[in-house]
């Protein structure tokens, strides 16, 4: 049991940054993002016999798919319950930077958000992103190029060097 937990902790720590950032980009709120992250890894634990032996890109693909499906389920549940998603509570966003990043992501298409998180949070290259999302590398490059323009214009004020290059 302890051995399994040790293995799972390594798996968790290898991928938690990606899953948490994706969850954050989808839910826009810290507590909801953590719930989504935990639920995704709980599913991974239950299927660890299947997911554990996969190569890291395939593990990421599995996690991205699971997080995406759970986020859709959550959204549907909220729609059914007619819960109006109010402004996030004050503690949800710790800084203006986080709000701006979330707002910039919200302007992108859903599929592009995943790609941007993989590129700029996880620093994955176009080939790795293509493997995880199941799209050709060239498509990833083209989409990234479009997103880069939009995001640089939107977020350059946060550049410590003093503006977009």
């Amino acid at each position, binding site marked *: 049991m302890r051995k399994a937990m040790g293995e799972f902790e390594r798996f968790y720590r290898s991928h938690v940054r990606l899953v948490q950032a994706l969850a954050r980009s989808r839910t826009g709120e810290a507590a909801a993002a953590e719930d989504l992250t935990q639920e995704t890894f709980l599913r991974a634990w239950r299927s660890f016999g299947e997911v554990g032996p996969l190569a890291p890109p395939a593990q990421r693909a599995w996690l991205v798919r699971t997080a995406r499906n759970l986020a859709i389920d959550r959204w549907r549940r909220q729609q059914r319950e007619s819960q109006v998603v109010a402004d996030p509570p004050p503690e949800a966003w710790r800084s203006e930077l986080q709000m701006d990043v979330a707002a910039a992501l919200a302007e992108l298409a859903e599929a592009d958000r995943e790609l941007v*998180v993989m590129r700029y949070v996880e620093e994955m290259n176009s080939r790795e992103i293509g493997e995880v999302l199941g799209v050709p590398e060239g498509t990833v490059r083209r989409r990234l190029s479009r997103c880069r323009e939009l995001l640089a214009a939107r977020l350059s004020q946060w550049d410590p060097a003093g503006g977009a290059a």
Partner: protein
Amino acid sequence: VNERDRMLTGIFQRGLGLGPEREDELWARFAARLQGEVAWVAFATAMAALIGGLRPALRAGAWPARLGSRA
């Protein structure tokens, strides 16, 4: 392109990334939840085994007979 990528990487990691402390916090909360899940599965497995063991005895009428002999 490289300059913009560097800039955006810095901004996104500050805006969405996890520091090591936050990662530890998340793992600690997740591990606690996992222990609960593991304990629940162990309990459910033990209950299933118990019920599985009782069922043939009940079907064979062994239990009521034993109860009857005590009465």
